Every structure is written in C-alpha cells, then in structure tokens.
C-alpha cells in the first residue's frame, strides 16, 4: 500500500514567470528561494508520483463543458497551455495507473469526477513545479478543480475530496510513495477592479485556521469571507483538498508575503504526513 509521504501547498501566478522584474529584487529572490526550498523538501520525501491539485484557467475546459473536478489520466502532459507564458515548452510525465486507481475509487466512494487523457497543463500546475525545480523530475497526477468559473464546488466538498484522496492513496498497490502538491491562492484578484489589492488579514486568518485544524471554523471562514479576498482566492479550494488529505497532520507555514505588484498573497506550506512527520 502507498504512503502519503508529504502534503504541500504553494501559490501560483503567471506573473512570477512573465514579469519577474515587477517586484523588488529582495522579494523576487525570497519567493524564488522559498520555491526551491519547497521543491527540496518535497523531493526529500522521495515520492514516486506527486498528485498536483490545481485548476484549469479555461484552457482545456470552456463553458461548453466544464467539470467541477477532473482527474488527468495520461502518461504525459503537454505544457504550457498559454502561448504567452514565459516558460519553455515541455512535457510533464504522468502516472496513468495511479490516475485510474483514484478515478475508480472516487466513483466507488460517491464522488463523480470527470477524467481526461489529454490535458495541456497551464501555469497553475506549471509555475510551482518549474520554480521548485520539479517539472522534469517527478511523475504527476493532475486533479483540476473548478475555481475559475461559477458555479463552483463548495468549500466543504473540497475538504471531503481531500479526505477521500488520502484513503485512495493508501489503498493503492502500484507504488509506495505518493505526495500531494496543491497550488493557487491565496488572496488575489484577477481582472477585477480590486486587482493588485491583497487581503492580508484574510490570508493570515486562513493560514491560522489551517494550523488550528478546526474543520468547522475553517469551512465557515472560507465560505463566508472568500468574497473579501478576491476571485483568485477561490483557489483556496485546492488548499482545502490538501488539508483534507493531510487528515490532522501538523500544518507548517513555510512562507507568506503579500506582493501587490505580483497581485498575489504568496503562500507556501506543508503538512507533515507519512515518513516526514
């Protein structure tokens, strides 16, 4: 049976790659250094596959067919989906066997994900993996959550998904070591009149509640206050999935800094699961 050897989360934004000079050198260096540290910590858990929980920013999906949850089920994923993203084109290695297992277990457990055997992954998956130095190192299973076009799945459903995911990983016989990386958030607005404004108080309270590990308070806060933190903050769903998967293991904030010129409250964290606990 596989062990969930580590659970991690990190913000993503294309401007970290496209407009690196938009922020002060000290901020840029700090963020890039922290991504490298996160990559090293994740690599140290020696995962055979990393389940990357992120969202498709309307590149693979559109309003004609938009799943709430979609599991990538390919052996390889092209990237990036954005022709304008400042990163070299390269394929990310997939783990279709683990994808198939999670998909089957999800349906048995009463979840109803879509699946796709051909995804071109965007900055949501790519930015953290590239900055962490992992995009060519690890096999992945992408799970894409709709955080970008209402109606959105509830915060509670995302936490439930995470709990299920932990169970599914631990019932897998195909490998021994699986990690999770959730990406997105925290407070930011994309293409709204608030773009560039960051609700730092929201971010710090959300992070505090992750550390406190009180699911009821966490869900109440996320549900009731996400509109104060920006449409990009809807990506806390991905963090909630990670939190559910971590199932009470200790949360540790690695880094937080609100960077207005990158439009985003940048956060990185881990939950100490498995061998790393």
């Amino acid at each position, binding site marked *: 049976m596989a062990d969930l050897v580590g659970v991690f989360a990190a913000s993503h934004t294309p401007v970290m790659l496209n407009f690196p000079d938009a922020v002060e050198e000290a901020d840029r260096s700090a963020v890039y250094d922290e991504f490298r540290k996160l990559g090293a910590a994740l690599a140290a858990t020696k995962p055979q596959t990393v389940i990357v929980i992120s969202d498709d*920013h*309307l590149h693979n999906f559109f309003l004609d067919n938009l799943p709430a949850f979609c599991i990538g089920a390919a052996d390889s994923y092209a990237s990036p989906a*954005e*022709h304008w993203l400042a990163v070299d084109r390269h394929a990310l290695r997939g783990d279709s066997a683990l994808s198939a297992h999670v998909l089957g277990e999800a349906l048995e457990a009463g979840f109803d994900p879509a699946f796709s055997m051909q995804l071109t992954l965007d900055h949501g998956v790519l930015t953290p993996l590239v900055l962490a130095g992992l995009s060519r190192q690890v096999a992945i299973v992408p799970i894409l959550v709709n955080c970008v*076009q209402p*109606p959105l799945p509830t915060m509670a459903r995302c936490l439930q998904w995470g709990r299920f995911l932990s169970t599914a990983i631990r019932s897998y016989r195909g490998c021994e070591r699986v990690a999770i990386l959730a990406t997105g958030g925290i407070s930011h607005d*994309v*293409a709204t*009149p608030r773009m*560039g404004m960051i609700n730092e108080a929201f971010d710090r309270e959300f992070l505090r509640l992750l550390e406190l590990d009180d699911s009821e308070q966490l869900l109440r806060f996320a549900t009731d206050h996400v509109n104060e933190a920006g449409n990009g903050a809807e990506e806390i769903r991905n963090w909630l999935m990670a939190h559910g998967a971590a199932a009470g293991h200790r949360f540790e904030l690695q880094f937080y800094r609100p960077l207005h010129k990158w439009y985003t409250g940048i956060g990185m964290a881990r939950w100490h699961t498995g061998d790393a606990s």
Partner: protein
Amino acid sequence: MRNWQQDIPTIQAYWIDRVLFDVHHKEGHLQRYNASPDAYLSAIPLSAEIKALIRDNAVGALYLAGANPYLLRAHCLGLHMPDAEFVASLRAVAGEARRG
C-alpha cells in the same frame, strides 16, 4: 465587492467568452483576429456595442458585462496589452462592480 459579476454566465457572456477563448486556443484565430478584429467578430451573435468593447480592449466594460476574468486576463496578456492600462481600465469601473 463580490468575486464574480454573474453567478452563472448569461448567453451574452458566453459569446464574449467564446471569442476570448477561441482567439487564443484555435489554430489561426489569433492571426485572423489581429488582422481584422471587426471581420473576426462579424459572425459572432453579439451586439455591435459589445463587439466594439472587445475590439477596443475595453477591459472594465467587458468585466461588467460578465466576461470571465481569467479569459479577459489571458486575452490581454496574449495581445500584449500593458498591465498598467489593463488595471486602470478595471479600476475605472470599481463603482459599478457587483456588491453584496
């Protein structure tokens, strides 16, 4: 302010989004759009006023009309619109954004 202008897109928003999506995801569409936005938009079932907003990169007005913000952002990045202009257009409509 709320995170989204619409809880589910209107049909008008769908067609705005259809343009923003297709231009950057369908082979040859970006070239066709850049060659002549008016010609590209001619067959789209949107009013002349909305087509003009798309053609003129009227970001704030498109946001109010329900364009998906991610598609709007990606469209303007893909057209190399300066970020300062992009943000200024949005700030200008702050008073009209959905509240509650």
